[in-house]
């Protein structure tokens, strides 16, 4: 085409700076716009301008003004114009109905055009633009080509178009005639691979409709099982044979891809067959299911015979595996499938590893032991340089974890954690979350090992662990049965922190410090009493005290959480340490915060000072060892009953009352007030105490920083029978009138997102005689798909209750805001 287009492109490319380029583009764009508006523009100039416009389209410029002009080009008798017109239409049109109607007529004409290339253009464009309206209007023309054309070139396109149209307008199934397809399949001269692809597409369309139909329970007028599926199943035998022939190496040179015969067609056929059996099973159709054994045999052959070293072979094998698992075929096949995926994993190609891990993740529930057998390869992927592969290997490691491989997998994960840096924070957080869950779920006999794991975790990735998870770790430490394990653990922590090698622990390792401080408070007595194999030169009362003082100075302005922990620990140590000098230092430490500007620290400091002045016997009771803590995962009604028996469990009782309804995690209060928790500490100190004193557990509650249950992102649930007042492509809105007394009403609006919605803003207006008060949007202005958020409204005044609501929000993948506005009238009048 013309040299003028060349020079145009050169001009745009030749611009030296961005501003230059912008100027050239704006100038040219304005020029094209004026030219196209000119009705007397010569024909060739018109064409040229559309070409330039298309180039601007590729560069991302605004081009809507050329839409009508491109449709006009289609009407031209000149093939070159027609071709450009169709190209422009498929690129520039944005689905506006008016233009599509305009186009329908032209497509209709061109589908009967004597020039087969014009027909081909029309078909290609129809494939793009298939809307339900076009489907109804143009299907007969497409069907005409399928029935009568003997040209594979047109036939393959017509079949693809028909597939699109039928999918767009399912009522076309009534007219669709399966015999057309049978005839095509029987006619060897026209049945090329391209045509076969078209056939698979049309079958996929019809079968997908079957799958959806059953789900939606929308029967319509067609008896799908008998009128559609039964005749369709007559093709199955032919299909199975064709696929087998394709796969069994009878190479046709034109279709060879890396030694595999037409992987494209093989994949499409596999996918089609999968749909066949899915629909067959759904509708319990014997005409389909009778072939299931043949299909399984064929899959076995494909799985064993296909070369898995090349991308094309892998594509087929991957489709085979997906088919096996989505139909949940027999066990030997499933194991074969897992083995294929494992072979992918063992290779060097990251693409196949990625695909394999993704699929293994999905099939673990169906075939856990088979997947476990390939643990070595999975662990190997933890070391991969691609983060998306590492992340999936990580997920998979936890997915296959059970009693039998717990220790090995966790050791692998420790190796993995050791290699992580700042950038892979997400995978670290993920690992810790799941590690904690794992230890909550599985009983580990060797608790010493378990604590070592956490020691390592803290050492390696302590800075990344958030406070909530630190609390979970503390609970696990606290719940360890053997006191000696706990004191060993503290011993190890202290040795690392105190003996000068503390370079291993960086200043920002808050997680490490918090755990250490808490453990000193709880188990410091065991160390100082010399009851362990401690290295007393490094770890002793004075060094611990100094360490706390140091820490306190270090974090005094930067981290109040740590200071909080230090204060509580200092108080606890006051009954565990023996040397009055150290105890006095600790008291001074606490006193230091008596006038802190941080209110919480100030309060703590003053309260602890009061405790400090109590006689030691009272303090010992107050600072009793923590009882065993239990996380309750399910709502347990007996929690309340137990806690009611406890004089001292006031706070916990209130909490469980509060949280029982909407929280998944809960804290169980100490089992009972008169059952004494392990009292080893006191045995060591040789002082027996009456343990039934009421204040004891109360102070336990108050003085120790244990996690409060955090209510798990309490989801808003849509109450039943709330009328829908608005329905758009992104949101459903429901309104519930809670109360409407004279003069005031309380309304709750619920927003249910169909796809993730961000930054939702709600604006409401009421009639003049009324006043509106809006509450906060709950839980947040970001709503995940299918989740709900709630907005409460209070209206006061008089008159009819009408609302005008305007919504502003973003959808994912787009920065431009979407506006929606609607009105709603309530039946009540204020």
């Amino acid at each position, binding site marked *: 085409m013309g040299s003028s287009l060349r020079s145009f492109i050169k001009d745009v490319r030749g611009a030296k700076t961005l501003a230059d380029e912008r100027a050239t583009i704006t100038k040219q764009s304005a020029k094209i716009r004026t030219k196209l508006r000119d009705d007397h523009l010569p024909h060739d100039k018109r064409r040229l301008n559309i070409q330039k416009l298309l180039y601007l389209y590729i560069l991302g410029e605004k081009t809507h003004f050329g839409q009508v002009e491109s449709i006009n080009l289609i009407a031209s008798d000149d093939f070159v114009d027609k071709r450009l017109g169709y190209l422009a239409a498929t690129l520039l049109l944005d689905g506006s109905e008016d233009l599509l109607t305009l186009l329908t007529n032209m497509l209709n004409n061109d589908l009967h055009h004597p020039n087969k290339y014009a027909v081909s253009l029309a078909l290609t464009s129809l494939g793009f633009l298939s809307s339900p309206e076009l489907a109804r209007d143009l299907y007969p023309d497409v069907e005409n080509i399928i029935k009568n054309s003997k040209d594979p070139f047109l036939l393959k396109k017509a079949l693809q178009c028909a597939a699109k149209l039928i999918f767009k307008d399912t009522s076309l199934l009534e007219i669709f005639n399966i015999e057309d397809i049978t005839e095509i399949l029987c006619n060897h001269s026209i049945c090329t691979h391209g045509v076969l692809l078209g056939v698979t597409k049309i079958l996929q369309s019809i079968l997908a409709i079957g799958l959806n139909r059953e789900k939606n329970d929308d029967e319509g007028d067609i008896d799908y099982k008998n009128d559609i599926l039964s005749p369709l199943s007559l093709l199955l035998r032919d299909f199975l044979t064709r696929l087998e022939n394709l796969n069994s190496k009878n190479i046709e040179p034109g279709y060879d891809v890396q030694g595999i015969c037409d992987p494209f067609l093989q994949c499409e056929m596999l996918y089609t067959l999968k749909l066949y059996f899915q629909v067959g099973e759904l509708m319990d159709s014997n005409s389909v299911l009778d072939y299931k054994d043949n299909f399984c045999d064929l899959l076995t052959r494909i799985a064993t015979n296909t070369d898995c070293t090349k991308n094309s072979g892998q*594509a087929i094998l991957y489709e085979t595996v997906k088919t096996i698992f989505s139909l949940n075929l027999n066990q030997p096949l499933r194991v074969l499938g897992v083995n294929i995926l494992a072979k992918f994993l063992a290779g060097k190609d990251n693409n196949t590893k990625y695909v394999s891990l993704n699929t293994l993740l999905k099939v673990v529930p169906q075939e856990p032991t088979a997947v476990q057998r390939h643990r070595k390869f999975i662990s190997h992927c933890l070391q991969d340089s691609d983060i998306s592969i590492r992340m999936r290997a990580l997920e998979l490691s936890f997915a296959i974890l059970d009693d039998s491989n717990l220790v090995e997998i966790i050791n692998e994960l420790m190796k993995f954690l050791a290699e992580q840096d700042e950038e892979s924070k997400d995978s670290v957080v993920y690992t810790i979350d799941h590690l904690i869950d794992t230890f909550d779920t599985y009983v580990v006999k060797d608790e010493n090992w378990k604590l070592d794991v956490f020691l390592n975790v803290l050492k390696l990735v302590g800075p990344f662990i958030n406070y909530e998870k630190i609390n979970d770790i503390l609970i696990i430490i606290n719940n360890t049965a053997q006191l000696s394990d706990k004191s060993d653990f503290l011993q190890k922590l202290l040795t690392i922190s105190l003996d000068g090698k503390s370079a291993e622990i960086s200043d920002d390792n808050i997680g490490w410090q918090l755990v250490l401080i808490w453990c000193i408070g709880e188990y410091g007595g065991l160390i100082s009493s010399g009851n362990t194999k401690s290295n007393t030169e490094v770890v002793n009362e004075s060094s611990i005290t100094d360490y706390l003082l140091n820490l306190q100075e270090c974090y005094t302005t930067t981290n109040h959480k740590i200071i909080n922990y230090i204060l509580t620990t200092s108080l606890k140590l006051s009954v565990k340490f023996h040397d009055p000098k150290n105890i006095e230092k600790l008291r001074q430490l606490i006193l230091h915060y008596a006038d802190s500007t941080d209110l919480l620290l100030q309060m703590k400091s003053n309260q602890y000072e009061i405790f400090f002045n109590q006689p030691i016997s009272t303090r010992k009771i107050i600072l009793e060892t923590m009882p065993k803590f239990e996380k309750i995962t399910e709502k347990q009604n007996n929690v309340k009953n137990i806690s009611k028996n406890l004089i001292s469990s006031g706070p916990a009782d209130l909490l469980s009352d509060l949280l029982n309804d909407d929280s998944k995690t809960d804290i169980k209060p100490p089992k009972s007030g008169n059952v004494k928790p392990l009292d080893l500490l006191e045995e060591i100190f040789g002082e027996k105490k009456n343990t039934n004193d009421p204040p004891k557990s109360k102070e336990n509650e108050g003085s120790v920083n244990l996690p409060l249950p955090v209510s798990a992102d309490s989801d808003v649930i849509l109450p039943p029978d709330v009328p829908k007042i608005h329905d758009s492509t992104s949101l459903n809105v429901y309104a519930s009138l809670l109360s409407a007394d004279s003069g005031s009403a309380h309304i709750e609006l619920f927003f249910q997102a169909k796809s993730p919605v961000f930054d939702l803003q709600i604006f409401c207006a009421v009639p003049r005689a009324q006043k509106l008060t809006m509450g906060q949007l709950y839980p947040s202005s970001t709503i995940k798909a299918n989740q709900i958020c709630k907005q409460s409204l209070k209206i006061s005044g008089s008159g009819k209750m009408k609302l005008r609501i305007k919504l502003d929000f973003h959808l994912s993948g787009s920065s*431009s805001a979407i506006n929606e506005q609607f009105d709603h009238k309530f039946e009540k009048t204020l």
Partner: protein
Amino acid sequence: MAVQFILCFNKQGVMRLVRWFDVHSSDSQRSQDAIAQIYRLISSRDHKHQSNFVEFSDSTKLIYRRYAGLYFVMGVDLLDDEPIYLCHIHLFVEVLDAFFGNVCELDIVFNFYKAYMIMDEMFIGGEIQEISKDMLLERLSILDRLD
């Protein structure tokens, strides 16, 4: 199973070919935003050590491959089979190469309409329609001569 879009751009992020197959949802501003995001995502990935697949949104993943200075990207459904789309891309590039004769970026820049013609002979409405390179090239040379 259908391609949602095909993009071709160079290392600087200048688009060379843009084809959205779902015309009805295309909105020029949104597609421009998506293109910018896709470029950022793909150009930041390690060419040698990362896979050629990356999840892009709730409904789309990207299959891409770099040939010299040009990226070829396909957007497909999340549930679709990734490896076969790599074959799609490769076949497309092979045909471009054979058609132009040792294709380079400038061939596509100046003859973008021919590149679209090739794309449209290979894909119809986002579905692959012809797989034989010989057949495609034969057909394309006829179409090319119709000028």
